C-alpha cells in the first residue's frame, strides 16, 4: 500500500483561488498539468499547461518537477 499517498495532502482549489495563486507566483515556480486527452487539450487548455494524458502519466512523470507546486485538472 502506498502510505505516502495518504499522508501527502492534495489540496483542492477553485478557479478563483487558482487564479490568485498564479498571480502570486512567477510562471516557472509552478506546473499546470493537464491530464485530459489530447483532443480536449486542443479544444481549450489553461495557458502554459503541460499535457500529460492520464494513461501516459506514470511513464512521463519525469517531464515535470516534483518539487514545484503542481496544479492538476
Amino acid at each position, binding site marked *: 500500500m*502506498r502510505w505516502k*499517498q495518504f499522508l501527502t495532502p492534495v489540496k*483542492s482549489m477553485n*478557479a478563483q483561488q487558482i487564479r490568485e495563486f498564479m498571480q502570486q507566483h512567477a510562471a516557472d515556480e509552478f506546473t499546470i498539468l493537464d491530464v485530459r486527452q*489530447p483532443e480536449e487539450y486542443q479544444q481549450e487548455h489553461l*495557458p502554459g499547461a503541460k*499535457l500529460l494524458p492520464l494513461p501516459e502519466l506514470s511513464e512521463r512523470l519525469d517531464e515535470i518537477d516534483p518539487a514545484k*507546486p503542481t496544479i*492538476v*485538472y
Partner: protein
Amino acid sequence: MLAGKGFEHVINMSGGIKKWDQPVAVGDVEQGLALFTGDESPLDTLVTAFSLEEGLREFYLSMIERVRRPSVKGLFAKLSDIEVLHQQRILKEYNALSGEDWTVETFGPRRAAPAMEGGLTTEEYIRMFDPDLESPADVVSLAMSIEAQAFDLYERASNRSRDDDSRKVLRRIAEEERAHMTQLGKLMAQL
C-alpha cells in the same frame, strides 16, 4: 498518483477547466512551434519574438481602419502602442546581447516571417473568437486571448529549447506575456 510519486504540493482544480473563467489557449502541443525549433540562439529567439509582436501591432493598426466607433479606434491604437513597448523591451535585450544598437524602426525590416503573436494568423483569431469589433469589451477580451495564446506558445517553446540561454529568454518573454494579460485585465476593468 502524483502524491505517491514524490510530488510535494499537488493542487486539484475543482470543477476542472469548465469553471475557468479566464482566457484559455487553444491548439495542440505543436501549435505555432514551427517558429521555434528548439535550436535557436538567444538572438534568433528574440528576432522571432520581435516579429510576433510586430505581427500583432500590424493587426491592431489594421483594425483601426475596420471599425467605426472612435472610442474603439482609440482602443486599437492604444493596443498597437502597447506592442511597440513590448518590441522595445525585446530589442533592449537583443542590443545588450549583440552589442548592436537597433531601434524598432531600423530593426523592423530585418524581421522574420510574418506571423501573429501566438502562432495564429489574424483571420484565424477573428474566426476563432468572433468578436463584436465595435465593442470595447470584446476587443480587450480578444487582446487578452491573444496574450494567453502567446504565453502558452512561449511556455511550450521554452520547454522545447535545447539552448539554456534561449530557454531563459523564452521564459522571460512568457512571464512578460502573462503580465500583459494582467494589464489588459485592468484595462477591461476601466471600460
